[in-house]
């Protein structure tokens, strides 16, 4: 039992570091050149012109805050849920762009990033990060539920 908890705790820590660093890094690049990020969003042809720039301004801030929450351990559940939602949103946008045959930059780590790779690499990376985020969320929910139970027993 203790060993299982130890493994879960270790996995959760590792996942939080990977997710936190990835999202903070991606957010900082996007915050550095918001116009390029707006161009990336527009290339997906999913949002109207009024929403493109609002997303380009706000989404990197959201990514940064979620990354910081997951990394710091403060409101981990909200951070992990935020990252999961973002990854589902990005994955959906990528899928639609591939179905429509759009030849675009993923823009996942800001414009012109060497980390973006091919759309398939972006899919794979999104999938792995989504699994990590969901795992962290599940561990955090279970841990909170156990704490609440212990508190109510006292």
């Amino acid at each position: 039992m203790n060993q299982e908890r130890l493994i879960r705790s270790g996995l959760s820590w590792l996942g939080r570091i990977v997710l936190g660093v990835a999202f903070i890094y991606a957010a900082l690049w996007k915050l550095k050149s918001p116009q390029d990020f707006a161009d990336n969003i527009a290339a997906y042809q999913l949002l109207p012109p009024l929403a493109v720039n609002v997303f380009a301004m706000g989404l990197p801030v959201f990514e940064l805050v979620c990354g910081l929450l997951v990394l710091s351990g403060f409101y981990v559940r909200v951070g992990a849920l935020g990252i999961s939602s973002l990854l589902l949103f990005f994955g959906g946008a990528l899928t639609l762009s591939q179905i429509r045959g759009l030849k675009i930059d993923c823009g996942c780590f800001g414009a012109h990033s060497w980390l973006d790779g091919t759309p398939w690499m972006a899919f794979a990376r999104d999938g792995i990060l989504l699994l990590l985020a969901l795992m962290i969320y599940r561990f955090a929910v279970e841990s909170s539920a156990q704490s609440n139970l212990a508190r109510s027993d006292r």
Partner: protein
Amino acid sequence: MLKRMILHDVIRLWVLLTTCLLGGLILNEMRPKPLDLVYVPPHARLGQSVARLGASASVTTVPDGDVARDELERLVADRGALILDARPEVFYRIGHIPTALSLARDDFDVRYPVLKASLQVWGSLPLIVYCSSSECDDSRMVADALHKLGYMHVRVFRGGWYDWTGANLPQEKEP
């Protein structure tokens, strides 16, 4: 209890998302060059900049053709052309083709007046514009803009930065 916890998380997430979107709008206003509220596509933004810089509407000829990597390599070695980097300046600073000057597509209205004197001094040489790779349009857009501003010998290195670095050719970095 579990459902209530997840519901609370979802509510907190919405509050956080709304706050971040508002925070992003405020942060944007604090930038030296804030984004407009409504998105304007790159070619339209560049067109506005070029019009502000006084482009001639009478230029109808097309810019010169593309330049291949081996030809560009020779031109760089002989200083036979003025190379212009159309990527965002942050990428130029990280690394660029030797002797290239930064003329980022999105900072065209700011960078062009700074470079104008150099462009005119070197006016007899061809101008070669590049961006990241053959997938990006920035080099083509900047070449067209320069052409509209009266530069007749503008060519594009379509392979761009990835083609150049992929061949292990020398590069320069900004301090």
